[in-house]
Each structure stands twice: as structure tokens, then as C-alpha cells.
């Protein structure tokens, strides 16, 4: 046994040194090791994956919905009163408003802009791209009606750079243009969407078209006093394109306890 060791000793020792040194030079696969297997790499994200999160957070997020819709907008509009909150006297609550401002950029617009960017590169996602454009108008319409001028054209474009404020007039004009184009480009002839992602209209493209036109009509009516010509033209085109005609056309999401928590208490928009 002894001579085996004597013979093997140099092989053993040098073999291990060489193998060790070999290992150290081996950092080639480090990039692969440091690629997170639990998440999507940026370019693989399917635009349709980005939409459901925004549908939910921009409408049914309970904390935000209660504060912005119920305790601010609805109280201001005197839909009802609630003496427990400062907004009852017409004061805005800075904490709520700034939290909405943060959320709408980083949660809604960032997701929708990414879906739009990716959708332009992926021919199979044409309809998702149009839906993202429509939903972005819905989100922005609300935001610009609250704040007036807001960052719009360069906001949340993925570069990480801050964006300048844009005039509300330009934002309205762009939204009307976006809705017009999106409605026109939506088509059931386009590739089918990934099923199960659209729980607003369940992949019914005709209804999305109606939603786009109805939203366009709403926005056209809202700017009727600022720019009557623009308003008239868009309103007429929207109606001609087809707007909501029955309850079945409603943009409606049915929530439940488990997924929405106390947001389930707010079943209206």
C-alpha cells in the first residue's frame, strides 16, 4: 500500500494544484450564474403579461381607490360625505395625492409604456399593443384631469431620466389621436392574444374598440369648451366608430375577496 502513495503523491498534489488553478481561471459562466432564473429577462416579457397588473392596480387597488376615488373625487363631487376626513372640507390630502402621483407613474405608466415598446417589436402582440395604448389614455385622462399639466411624452420611458411637464392641451390632443389610431388598428384579424390575460373583455376585440371610441367621446366632450372644433370632430368620429350601446359593453371587472382584499368593498368605478 505504501508504494502506491509514494508513486501517487506527486500526481495527487500537482493534480490538485492544477485543477484548482484551472478553476480560478474559469469565470466564463459567471454571467450565466448571475442571471436570475426566477424572473423574466427584459426582452422576453410578453406585453400581455404586463396588462392585468395595471388593470387591477389602476382601478381596484383598495388603498389607492379608497383615498383617491372615494375620499377625494367622490367627496369633492358631493356623491356622499364622510366627516372623518379632511377632504370633506374640500382640502386635498397631500400624502394621498403624492402617493397616487408616484403610483401612477411607476406602476401604471411604466408597465403600459413597456408593453407598448415591446408590442411594437412583436408582431404577434398587435392587439395587446393597442389595448395598452387605450388603457394608457384611460390612466392619463384621470391624471391630467386631477393635475392639469403633467409629464407625458417622455415620462417613464425606461431610460430612468426625469421627464418634463407637458401642456394639458397637447396631452388631450395626443390621447385623442392615440385612441383613434388604436381603435383603427385593433382587429380580430390580428394574431390571437394569449388567452386568459384579458379579464376586462375576455379577448373580445369588438368591445375594446367600443371602449376606445367611448373613451374618445368622453375626452372629446371634456375638451368641448377648450377647443370646440377638436371636440366636435373627435366626438363625431368616435360615435361613427361605434360606442357603448348596452350594459354588456361596460368596462367591468368582477373582483373577489382573495385577490382584492378589502378592495372588494369598492365595486364601482
Amino acid at each position: 500500500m505504501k508504494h502506491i502513495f509514494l508513486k501517487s503523491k506527486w500526481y495527487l498534489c500537482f493534480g490538485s494544484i492544477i485543477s484548482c488553478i484551472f478553476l480560478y481561471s474559469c469565470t466564463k459562466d459567471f454571467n450565466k450564474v448571475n442571471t436570475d432564473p426566477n424572473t423574466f429577462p427584459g426582452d422576453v416579457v410578453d406585453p400581455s403579461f404586463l396588462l392585468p397588473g395595471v388593470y387591477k392596480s389602476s382601478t381596484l387597488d383598495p388603498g389607492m381607490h379608497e383615498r383617491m376615488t372615494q375620499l377625494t373625487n367622490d367627496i369633492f363631487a358631493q356623491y356622499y360625505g364622510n366627516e372623518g376626513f379632511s377632504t370633506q372640507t374640500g382640502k386635498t390630502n397631500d400624502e394621498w395625492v403624492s402617493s397616487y402621483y408616484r403610483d401612477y407613474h411607476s406602476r401604471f405608466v411604466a408597465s403600459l409604456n413597456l408593453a407598448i415598446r415591446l408590442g411594437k417589436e412583436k408582431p404577434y402582440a398587435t392587439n395587446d399593443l393597442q389595448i395598452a395604448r387605450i388603457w394608457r389614455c384611460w390612466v392619463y385622462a384621470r391624471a391630467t384631469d386631477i393635475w392639469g399639466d403633467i409629464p407625458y411624452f417622455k415620462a417613464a420611458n425606461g431610460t430612468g431620466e426625469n421627464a418634463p411637464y407637458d401642456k394639458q392641451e397637447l396631452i388631450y390632443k395626443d390621447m385623442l389621436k392615440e385612441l383613434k389610431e388604436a381603435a383603427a388598428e385593433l382587429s380580430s384579424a390580428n394574431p390571437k392574444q394569449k388567452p386568459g390575460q384579458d379579464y376586462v373583455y375576455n379577448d373580445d376585440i369588438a368591445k375594446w374598440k367600443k371602449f376606445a371610441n367611448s373613451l374618445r367621446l368622453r375626452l372629446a366632450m371634456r375638451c368641448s369648451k377648450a377647443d370646440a372644433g377638436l371636440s366636435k370632430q373627435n366626438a363625431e368620429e368616435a360615435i361613427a366608430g361605434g360606442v357603448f350601446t348596452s350594459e354588456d359593453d361596460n368596462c367591468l371587472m368582477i373582483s373577489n375577496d382573495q385577490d382584492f382584499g378589502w378592495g372588494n368593498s369598492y365595486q364601482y368605478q
Partner: protein
Amino acid sequence: MNKIVLLLCSLLLGSISFAQTKQITGVLVDATSNQPIPAATIKVKGKSTSTVTNAEGRFTITVPVGNTTLEISSVGFDSKSIDVGANENNLSVSIEKNMKDLNEVTVTALGIKREKKSLGYAVQEVGGKNLTEARENNLVNSLSGRVAGLQLYKTGNGPTGSTKIVIRGNNSLGGNNQPLIVVDGIPMDNYQTANNTSEYGSFDGGNGISDINPDDVETLTVLKGPAAAALYGTRGGNGVILVTTKKGASRKGLGFKFNSNYAVDNPLLYLDLQNEYGQGNDGVYDVKSQSSWGPKITGQTITDWRGKSVPMSADPNDLKNFLQTGKTWTNSLDISGGSDKTTFRLGYTNLNNKGLLPNTELKRDLITLRVNSELTSKLSADAKVSYANQRTINRPQLSGSPSNVFSQYSTLPRTVHMADMDPWKDVYGHQILWLPQAFSTLRNPYWLLNEDFNNDQSDRFLTMIALDYKFNSWLKLKVRHGMDMRNATAESGSAYGIYNNDPGSPSYNFQSGYGTNKSRTVETNADFLLSANKRFKDFGVSLSVGGNQQRYQYSIAGGNTGNLDIPNVYTLASGANPRPYSQKVESRLNSLYSFVNLSYKEYLFVDVTYRNDWSSTLSAANRSFNYPSFSGSLVVSEMLKKSFNTSLPSFISFLKLRGGYAQAGNTISPYSLNPSYGISRGFFNAIITSPPSTLVNPDILPEIVKSQEYGVDLRFINNRFGIDFTFYKKNAYNQILYLPVPPATGFSRKVVNAGNVENKGYEFVINAGIIRSTAGVNWDMLINYNQNTNKVIKLHPETKVYLLQSDEQSRAVRITANEGEEYGNIYGRDFSRNSAGQIIVEADGTPKKSEDKNILIGNYQPKYTMGISNTLTYKGFSFSFLIDIRSGGQFYSQTQAYTHANGNSAGTLNNREGGLIVDGVLADGSKNGKAINAQQYWSKVSGAEPVASLFIYDASNTRLREVTLGYSIPNKLLGKLPVHNVTMSLVARNLWLIKSYIPGIDPESSFSTTNSQGVENGAYPSTRTIGFNLKLEF
């Protein structure tokens, strides 16, 4: 491959010889102190046979039949030869301390043994004996007060809780501040589970270091900073704790050691509550009130929440009667043996702990097998396998979780009794609550312990195999591989149904659920070290080159059910909408290092080390990092003798000066460079993903700690007294900071490298042989002292504010590390004050709370910490005690804020009937004259968002941490019994909180191990442990 098999075979089989030999045993003691001498070499003259004494100074050696001579040598002692007669056995040998040559040896980075005098930095050792007598469930807790500069942040999370270790202050703002744990040269994952605990609850799953068996530990060596730990590079910035485990000893037959420890735990403190006023408000009894602002208790009859007519009473023992005595029984067996070439040790420890709360349990089985073998005269092998199995039933729920029994108790009106809540369920199986309307925050404590549950189990393997090859007298090679693998499973369930019997609106609340997961962590390390040692006359040169490759993998898979459709059936299928989850993490770290140790005449020593790391968690351009260190040591006392032929005054026996500079790092976590789009399955089973809210930075660098330290080691009167003083300063740069960005970017924060966190301080270690008497009475004292200032010198041009906690952790206070301030400042509300500092009082006579939540009210770090340990021995008796002192720093108690808000605290007794005039001024500047009562006052200033400055306490405390009183039965009394070395001890931990400033709450009760400390909420009471320890050898 065949060769490895052969190696392993010979390693395991060994080569036990049965020639004409016999075995003799003995004990080796210090001639002056009578203390046993461990690690001394006993050699048979003229033979190659030798052995080493164990921690108790005992040895067993195989000698030829007939007369023989033993040669005894030990570092720091004079060598001695003794003749042993043919029939002599059970020797008692004493040797004299060698005062000239104090060559104490200690373990340093990479497990290299070196003479202490040659080190240019401070290291400190704790012997294994300190860990096994007055035991702790978590080994690390035994270090309290034993190492200067090592600060433990204990949690108030019960017997299975975590403890945070910080050496010489916090380096990192957002990252890890705990040292690396290395067991026999192999890094071990000290996983943390108490990171997510917040004001709202969670539970503490313990931390990784508790899987080390204290019975296996020979010594713990603390490398306190980068100077000592630079060879650990990117993992060494926070210091390193090196654990050296026991080896077997060559002897005839097998040596058995048995240790049994039984200990009982009782709360050290109970909350300081009042027992004079009952449930209600404004002095009026109200069965639905959650406060104790009711009438004075005079024995009046009331209708209680059960509808029974009872005399109103408060019971100071409500909680005491609910709790049980905690019990811990630990048994360990140690078998060792072997020939002069091959030795083995098999250690087994079983721990069984029952907590203060009924139905809580912790069980541990720890097995270690270690084999050391000299395979040839040049090749030796060391192999070890440790297995740790841990089973936990019902870890306590913490903090503000409704399921925390202790927070339930503290918010219970004083005249509502815990004992009345048993039975805890009605005929329908629904939970009975004393106030069903408050079902969202109330739980029945009996229900919590009998119906809800959490269990976890883990199996952990630590393996190590090392081969040492000596090419010749000056060149050697070590190759080593180690693995740390942990498989864990956890489950928790909450039972079905609370019935709200409010007559106005009866309703059911079916909140219930079940979750389970399995996880696996594997870390492997392979390393080599080639060292050359040469002497050239007066010069000694040692040059080493080595490398290490670390691989880390973690995975978890599990699921949650949401509400259970089927009551009391705890499977994922029982849930209305089960949701699975899984995660995988992987990282690698390659390193190469080299170091040179130079010495001149054995009194001047210079070390230079250099390590380069390549980390997979960094980008290709930034992957490579280097960490240099330089240190030196000058033994002045020897220099004067050897080179100047003079000496210091005779009472100074040793003087050493040392100093060094080093850099080490702090790793960044995997996957932090690239944007990641998290995936979840949401409502209607849609796939949901969203862009990251953090703007990632692919150029991020790891944190780097630059440190310098200087020290003096001075000993007097033949080394009977010694002081070792160290001054250090370390600065941690490249902090990973998250800065807010404008919302219009679409991100909420960005990550940058910036900042400079400084720790500056000094520490000293004093050794004193206070009494050395010829009658055999000895008293030794060891004092450890550290004073540290932890300051944030710089953050980033864009921010001067850094929150150490997430916003959710506490609504009342914020723990910060702001630029220009001390790390760990506590901010919160104060009273609203005018420019003269007077409290502003409102028209109703109550004081006004400040609008501003960011008023500096304290800092969680101590000014200094000190441990004083004493050992007295006389013949077979030994008595030791450890006093642990922490001075300075503050602690915020949310429990106090709640018990003041609801009138439970004894602090609310004054002015119950009115007459409280707040010393302050009204808005118009006039002095307040309006009297209010205690309820009006405390309801205003305490609660969830209180005047935090009222509930911030001085965290200074002094305690009798540990006491042991032991007696060893003299072996001659044991006569021919097979047993020898019988030691019995009475042991106690946390026996007496000598001085503290928080009524009823231990200042060592924070709820997390994050960098945000100093906040308590509903803590599990800290315990006083008293036990009995029996040690036998066969």
C-alpha cells in the same frame, strides 16, 4: 479516483497496533496555578508514540510494557521528562511555566496556527468549556461578555430566537453586518430568518450558527476586523468567527465522556402592570371596553364578558399561571480513540427544550464523526461529517401579530382574565373571544397554542475533508473540500372560524389558512494552500499561496392556501385557491491569495497578505477585486534582551507593540445588477408581471472596509497580570444606497455606490491572576471592554437621510443612519414645544403631540460594553461568574406605549381621578392651569403613534450573565470504579438583572436581527435559567 478510495479506506480503518504495550493515563497541571494544561504533547522517549492532553489536561498514552520515560512539552512551559514505573498509572504531573518564552498559539485566518506574539492584530479565543456548562440553546449567546468588541443583539423571540452578532460596530447600511462563520476551515451559512419581522408580527425561525454543537467546539476564535480577516477578502469585512472542533486522541481502547445538563427557565421579568383599576372608561365599568380606565377595584360585583356575575378583580399572576416552566435537557456523549497514527472522535448531543408557552418545543440531534490519520510520514488526512437535525414545534409569534400571546396579554383589560378563556372554542368549533367584535385584533391565547400551529424541521450536513502533504522539511500543501448542506421544511396553519356574536350584527370570520415550503441550501468550498517555511540564521520566512472556490445554491418551493374550504384539514388541496411559489438563487466566488510572514530573531514580525476575488454577483468589468493587508508586531521585551542585552524592569514580563492596515469587503447579493420582471399568478389565474421599481445599476461594486488597528500587549509579574489594548478605526466605503428618484422616471428608486461609515474605538482585555495561593486557592479574572463610536461620515450628494428600517417596521419610531450623525439614531414624536422648549397644551388641558415624527430621541448602540468573568478554584471546587455590562444607548418599547394607552401599566396609576396639570403653556403663551385625569393624558400621548420620547428608555444594564459552581470528585475517591473525572455543577444564566432602566422589560428584546435595532413590541419574556450539569468520563 482509486487513489482517493484507498486514502479514505486507510483513513477510516487506520492501523491500530497491538504490540507488547499498555496504556497509562494521567493529568497534567500547571505547577503554580494547579490548572490543567490542555494541548500539551506527551511523548514516549525513544519512540514515535505521542499524544496530546485534552481540555481538562488529561492524557492517555500507549507505552511499552515495563519502565519507560515520558517527555512532556507544552508551549509556554518548561519541558520535563518523567520516569514511569512498570506498574504506575493515573499519573499526576505538574510542569512549570516558562516565563521567558511565551509562545501561546492561536488559530488565525484559513485555520493556520500561529504564535500569538507574532500577530499584528487582535484575536481573542473562547474555550469550548465556556459553551457547555451554562448552556444556551443558541451557541452564540454564550459569547456575551467574553470577547471585547463583540456585541450581541439578542431578540425577545423566545428559546428558538435569533441573535445578531456585530464586531466593532456596523459597517454596512443596507447589507449584512454579521461576521463570517468558519468551521474547521469551511465557511458555514449563518442564515437569518428574523429579517422580516415588523411591528405587525411574523416569527423568528432562528439563525444558522445554532446548528453548531457546543460539545464539538474546542475553541472559538474571533478575528475582529479586516486586519485579521483580510484573507477572507470579500467575505471578511465584518470579521470572522473561527470554530475549531475537537479531534480524537490516541489511547488504548475507547474513551467515553458523558455530559448531562438539565435546566429550567422562568421569566426574568414580568410587565409592570397595575392591579387597582378595572375594565372600562372614565371610571365606569364597561364589559366591551378594551381599556383599564374603569372603576377602582373594591370587590364590587360585575357581569363579565361571559355573562357571569363575579367580583371584579385583577390578578398579578394572570400570565405567570398561563405560562409553564421552560425545561431544557441536553445529553451528550463523546467517544474517542485511536492509535498513534489514526484517531477518531464521535460526538452526539441531544437537546430537548420546552418553552414557557405550552405546546412549544425545540429538539435537536447533533452527530459528528471526525477521523485524523497520518497515512504516511508525509501525508496526513483529516475528515469530518456533522449532521444536525432540528425539529421545532410552534415558534412563538412575535411583535404586533394578533397571534402573539404576549401582546394579547398586554392589551387585555386587567380584570379580564386569561384563565377564563379556557375553553377556547364553542360547540361549533369556533374560537371564543372575550370581545368578538374585535376579532381582527383579538385572539384567544388558548386557541393560539392549541389550534393554530407552525412546525419546522431541518437536516443539515457539514462535511470536511483535508489532505496535508509535506514535501520536505520546508514545503507543504493542504487541499481541502467542505460542504454545508441544509434541507428544511416548514409549515404553518391557522384554524377555522371566529364567530362574532355581536347582537347588532352577528357575523362569521373564516380567516384561516395553511402554508408549507421546502428549501435547500448548499454551499461548497474547495481550497488549497501551498506553504514554504525557511529559516536563514535570524530570519524566518514563510510564503504561502492558496485559492478557494465557493459555490452557493439555494432553492425553495412551497404554497399557500388562502382560506381553507375544509376546516382543520391542513393540506394545500384544502384551500379555496392554493398558490404555489418557488425561487432559486446561485452564486460563485473564486479567490486566489498569497501571504508572506517574515520574522527577525523571533521578536520582530511582519505580515503581508493579498487576496483577489472574482465574484459572480458583479458585472464582468467589476468582477475582480483585491484585498491587501500589512501588519507588524514587535516584542519589545525580547528585542531588548536579544539585541540590546538589556531588559525592562523585572515586573514587566512581556511587552509587545503591534499595528496593521487592511482591506476587506462585503458581498452583494446575486441578481442585483439586471432589471428583473417578477412573475406572479394573480386573479383569474392571469400571468402578472411588472417592470422593476428600482433603477438597477450594472456597475455596482461591493462594499469595502478599510481598517487600521494598533495595539499594546503588556504583562506583569511573570505574566500573572496582563493588559492587551487595541485602538482601531475602520471606514466602510461603496455603501449600496437606494435613493429616491422623481416619479416621472417610472421608477421609485435607484441604486448607487456611495458613502462612508466609520467605526472608531478602543478595547482592552485584562487578565489577572488575583489570587495564587500555595494552599490551592486561585482567582482569575478576565475583563473585556470595548468602546465604539459608529458614525455616518458621508452618504451621497443627493441625500443626507438613510432609513435602516422599512417604513412598515414601526409607525412610532424610525431608526436611521443619517449623514453626519451616529449610526442607529432613533427618531420619533416628542411633545409639541415652543421655542423655549415648553410643552404646548391644548385648550382641553392635554399636551399636544409634535406634528414632526422626525425628532431625535435616542440611539440604539451602546457607548461601551464590558464583561467581567471570574473563576475561583480550590481543590476540586470551582466557582465562576460573568458580569455583563452595557452602558449607553436607548431602547424604544412599543409595549409600554400600548400598556399606557389602555391604562394597564402601573405607570398610569397616578391622577386617575384627575388633578393632573400638564406643565406647559397654552397656544397664547399663558401657563396651563387645566387639570385632566390619567386617561385623558395617556390616551393622548400613547398608543400606536405615541409621543415616542416618553417610551424611550436608557438601554444600559448590568447583569449577572452566568454563574457556575462545580465540584470534581477526586479520582482516588472513585477508587476502582470505571468512572473517573466526575464533575457536578450548578449552573445559571441570566440570573440577576442587577441594574436596568426599563420597568418590566429586558433591554435585550428587540424583534429583529436587521440593522434596525432598539425597538421592542410584545416581546417574549427573557428567561432566568437555572440548571445542573454532570460530567463523567469512562
